C-alpha cells in the first residue's frame, strides 16, 4: 500500500496519564515521524458524530492507540467504522502502573514522560510501516 494514508485514533482520556501519552505520541507521529502518511482522528469528535472522521476510518486503515485496556479508541472504531487495522495499547508497552497513574499537567511533564512518548510513537510507526509494506 505505497500511497495509502493511515488514520491514528488515539485515546483522549485525561483522567490518567495513559491518555495524555497516547495523544502526544499520536501527534508526534503525525507531525514529525511520518509526515503526510498519518492523519490523526479526534476521538471525542469521532464519537460525537464527526462524519469526516468516521468516513475516513471506513475508507482507510486505522490504528487505535489506547491508554489502557478499556480500549475506548479501539471500541469506538469497531462500532462506528467497522475495522481496526492494528492497535497499540500503552499499558502493554509501559505497564499498567504507569498509564493508570495520575494525570500530569503540561507544566509538569518531564523528560521521563517525553521518553515514554517516544517509545509509544516508535511503536505506532512500526505499525504504520507494516501497513504501508503490505
Amino acid at each position, binding site marked *: 500500500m505505497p500511497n495509502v494514508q493511515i488514520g491514528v485514533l488515539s485515546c483522549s482520556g485525561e483522567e490518567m496519564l495513559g491518555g495524555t501519552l497516547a495523544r502526544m505520541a499520536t501527534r508526534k507521529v503525525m507531525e514529525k515521524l511520518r509526515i503526510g502518511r498519518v492523519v490523526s482522528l479526534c476521538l*471525542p469528535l469521532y464519537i460525537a458524530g464527526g462524519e469526516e472522521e468516521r468516513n475516513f476510518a471506513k475508507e482507510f486503515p486505522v490504528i487505535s492507540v489506547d491508554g489502557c485496556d478499556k480500549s475506548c479508541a479501539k*471500541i469506538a472504531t469497531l462500532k462506528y467504522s467497522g475495522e481496526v487495522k492494528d492497535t497499540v495499547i500503552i499499558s502493554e508497552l509501559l505497564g499498567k502502573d504507569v498509564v493508570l497513574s495520575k494525570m500530569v499537567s503540561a507544566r509538569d511533564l518531564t523528560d521521563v514522560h517525553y521518553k515514554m512518548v517516544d517509545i509509544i510513537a516508535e511503536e505506532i510507526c512500526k505499525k504504520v510501516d507494516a501497513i504501508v509494506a503490505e
Partner: protein
Amino acid sequence: MNKAYAVLPCNGLDKCAGCISGEMAIQLSKQSKSEIICPVFYRVAEAKYSSVIEALPLLVIDGCGTRCASKLASEKGLKIAEKMNITEEAKTLGIDIGLSIPINEAGKALAMTLVNRILTADKPSESTLDDFIQMPSLIYQEYKKDKFLFRVPENKGFYFNENDVWVYVVGNKARLGVTDFVQQSLSDIMFFTPPSVGMEIEQFEEAGNIESGKAIFEIVSPVSGTIIKVNERLLDAPELINQNPYEQGWIAEIELSDFEEDQDLLHDFEGYFPVLKRKVDEFHV
C-alpha cells in the same frame, strides 16, 4: 473561596485548543474540588459520572467551533452552568496558542488565566435571528481529500466566482456565501464582519470578511448590487459557516443591479466543481 465544577473538556486532538481544554480541567481539579469528566469515557460509562454531575455545577470547555463538549452535554440533557471556548478566548485575549502538541508556553499561560477567571469570577452572553430568500432543498456533490469533505450545491441558480464565493439567484435578488473550500481552509471561523445593509457594491468588491485563527478571508462579491440583508446570526455564531456555509452559514442578500453582465465572469456548478477539486488537490492541507 474557590468554586468547584464538574468539568467536561472536549479533549480534542486535532487542535491544541482541545489539549488546552484538557489542561484546564487538570488545573481546575488541582486548584479546587472540581472533578473531570472524560468526554469519551462518559459516553461509554455514563453512570460513573452521575454522582459528580448531580453534586457539582457543570463547566463545559470546548476547544473549537465544533463544540464537541457542548454537543455531548446537550445530547445527554445536562444543565450547563458555565461554558468556555478556548479558540475564542485566545482570540479575544490576543494569544497565539500555536498548533502543536504538547501545548506551547502561551497555551499553558492561557489555561492558567482562564482557570483563575473561572475560579474567581462570572460573565454572560446572548444572540438574534434573521431570514429572507427561500432556499430550495440543496443537492450536493462531494469531493473528499483525506478526512476533509468539500461539498458544492448543484442546484440551478447557484453561481460561483474563482474566489470561492457562491451566489444563489432568485429573480433580481440573490443570497451569497462562501464555499466549503473556504470554511475548510480557514478551519474554525471566529469572527464575521458583515457588509453594511444599503451598501452598493460592484462585482468583485468586498462584501465583508470572516476570520479564523489561521487567516482573514475577504468575501469577494460575485455580483454587483445593493446589500439588503445580512445573516445576523453569524455575529454571535460565526461557526455556522463551518457547519454549513450554503445553508445556515450564508452571508448576505443582495438586490442585483446587472446580473446578466456579472454572470459572464461566474461559474455554474459544472464550471466550479473542477476548480474546487484542483484547489483542494493543490492547496489544501
